[in-house]
């Protein structure tokens, strides 16, 4: 009996590790990303906007040096007309970059007829898909870290004061959140690259989803909240319920999660995300910054939400890819 069970278990187990060949895929894909014209264009775009916005912020900040505890964070969040702030630009460019990295990941291999040849090597499909995701993720992290260093360097040169430990820590957490925010769009584009045979369709579909969340979801959330929790008599409870629902719905969008994280991490004086009743502010000293730990605690649900969404999307792509027939 025990012997039979053992044999049954062995038969169900796949031979070898699903990650055989993973790093070969990652290395090849990263090399492709870093040398592709597509990536070069995006890098130039990002570096230009980063230096442009930071330079504009510097012009503003020079007048207030010495009055602000979080000068380096201001560098990222200060906008000067007509340019938006650095974080605004990044929130716009990161999804684009992530989509550009993955929209032709799987269908590209199909169309080049390389998929069956690669899968005939002693690796599992897991390694190919995860390798492609990791390569995109690492590329994104590499680009964003470079920009982070660039901004810090510019700040050092022009402000003439070093950043405090807390500022460095906060901006690093912000960097991490940005990478995972990109991870969502990377995983989404990867899923579309499995579903659609045409890379152009996959790219358009990814951009459509992104536009939907950035432009329409806010409106839809507010409309839905008005329909589902109507304010009939003007009671405070009614208004509160409606606002709460609207906020919950809005948080289904990764953009909302990401902007809340940005807000809490880069503005240390923000003490709450979402609705605050006057009674909850009793005893609080307004305008004093929160310690990093508290700000992190505040954004923890949003941060885990971003990571969870990335993993869920990747898992969806994984299931779709495993079931796909590879014949042309």
């Amino acid at each position: 009996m025990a012997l039979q069970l053992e044999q049954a278990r062995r038969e169900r187990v796949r031979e070898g590790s699903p990650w055989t060949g993973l790093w070969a895929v990652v290395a090849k894909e990263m090399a492709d990303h870093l040398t592709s014209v597509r990536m070069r264009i995006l890098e130039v775009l990002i570096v230009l906007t980063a230096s442009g916005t930071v330079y504009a912020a510097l012009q503003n900040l020079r007048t207030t040096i010495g009055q602000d505890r979080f000068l380096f964070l201001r560098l990222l969040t200060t906008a000067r007309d007509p340019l938006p702030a650095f974080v605004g630009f990044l929130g716009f460019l990161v999804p684009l970059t992530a989509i550009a990295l993955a929209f032709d990941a799987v269908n590209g291999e199909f169309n080049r007829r390389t998929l069956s040849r690669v899968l005939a090597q002693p690796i599992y499909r897991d390694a190919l898909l995860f390798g492609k995701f990791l390569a995109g993720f690492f590329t994104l992290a590499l680009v964003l870290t470079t920009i982070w260093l660039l901004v810090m360097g510019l700040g050092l040169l022009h402000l003439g004061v070093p950043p405090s430990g807390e500022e460095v820590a906060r901006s690093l957490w912000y960097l991490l959140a940005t990478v995972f925010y990109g991870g969502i769009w990377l995983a989404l584009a990867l899923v579309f690259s499995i579903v659609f045979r045409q890379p152009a369709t996959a790219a358009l579909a990814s951009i459509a989803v992104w536009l939907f969340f950035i432009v329409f979801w806010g409106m839809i959330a507010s409309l839905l909240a008005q329909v589902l929790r109507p304010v009939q008599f003007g009671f405070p409870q009614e208004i509160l319920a409606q606002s709460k629902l609207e906020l919950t719905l809005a948080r289904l969008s990764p953009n909302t999660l990401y902007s809340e994280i940005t807000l809490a991490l880069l503005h240390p004086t923000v003490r709450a995300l979402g609705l605050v009743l006057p009674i909850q502010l009793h005893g609080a000293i307004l305008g004093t910054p929160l310690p990093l730990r508290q700000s992190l605690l505040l954004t923890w649900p949003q941060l885990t939400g971003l990571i969870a969404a990335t993993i869920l999307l990747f898992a969806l792509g994984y299931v779709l890819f495993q079931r796909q027939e590879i014949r042309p």
Partner: protein
Amino acid sequence: MGELVIETRGLTKHYGDLAAVEALNLAVEQGEVFGMLGPNGSGKTTTILMLLGLTEPTAGSVQVLGFDPARQPLSVKARVGYLPEQLGFYDELTARENLIYIAKLNGLRRDEAYKRIDQALEQMGLGEVADNRVATFSRGMRQRLGVAEVLLKRPQLIIMDEPTQGLDPEAAREFLDIIRDLKAAGITILLASHLLHQVQAVCDRVGLFHQGRMVLEGTVKELAQQVLGGAYRIRLEADGAALEEALQSLPGVVNVNHPDANTYELEASSDLRTEAARAVIEAGGRLLALDVEEPSLDEVYTRYFQEVEHGAAA
């Protein structure tokens, strides 16, 4: 009887209601070149994908080099080379870079990989263009690069899907020579194709596929015996009376055609040239010409599918 490299029993694959492969029993021996022959959509590619563990069979069992591709795909894929029908490479990379990627996926150590890559490229006559981008390669060169890639893993078995399709006659002939060289090196080869004279030129045995089933199997001669009735066709020109009856009565003659006054076509189970000549002379005729045609796979193929159609119509 050599050792079996491929053995399938009752192998079946359904896509929904469509039976792509039905109860296939295939046995390929060590060192032979086996040709899978059949029209498009007869289940050749599906069979290949199941042999490699790239598609799960609906029913039946497969053994490739003693491994089950569905359970031990890595062991199978480490030992079996696959040349797909649509052979694609990363065009923006050089031939060498393409092979380096494949070598890495096979887990070869760097120095070993580089050695094997140089060797394989040289062997396929691509040494000169090793550092050119694959985008500049002709179809024949791509095909040879495909073989070079397959050779990296020192395979015991190579599976080729329509390897000569789209090649010009010269490149196709060169490719058939490559197949012969591989066979001489002791590698078993499974070949799927519908280009009959090429299959006939290199294959030891042939399996004829039709609607997911292997309907005929054997050497070309055996197939001709089964389908055409006689494996030999003897053409003779002779002058004389009542020759047809004389030829007909020879032992071993299956059929005699008499297309025009002096021409006779014999279908026979063995080479009956001497007997036929004697029969003509003994019947008082004058022998003008005598020739024997080897049966061609083309004829077998055409005749078989004609019969299938007639059978379906009846």
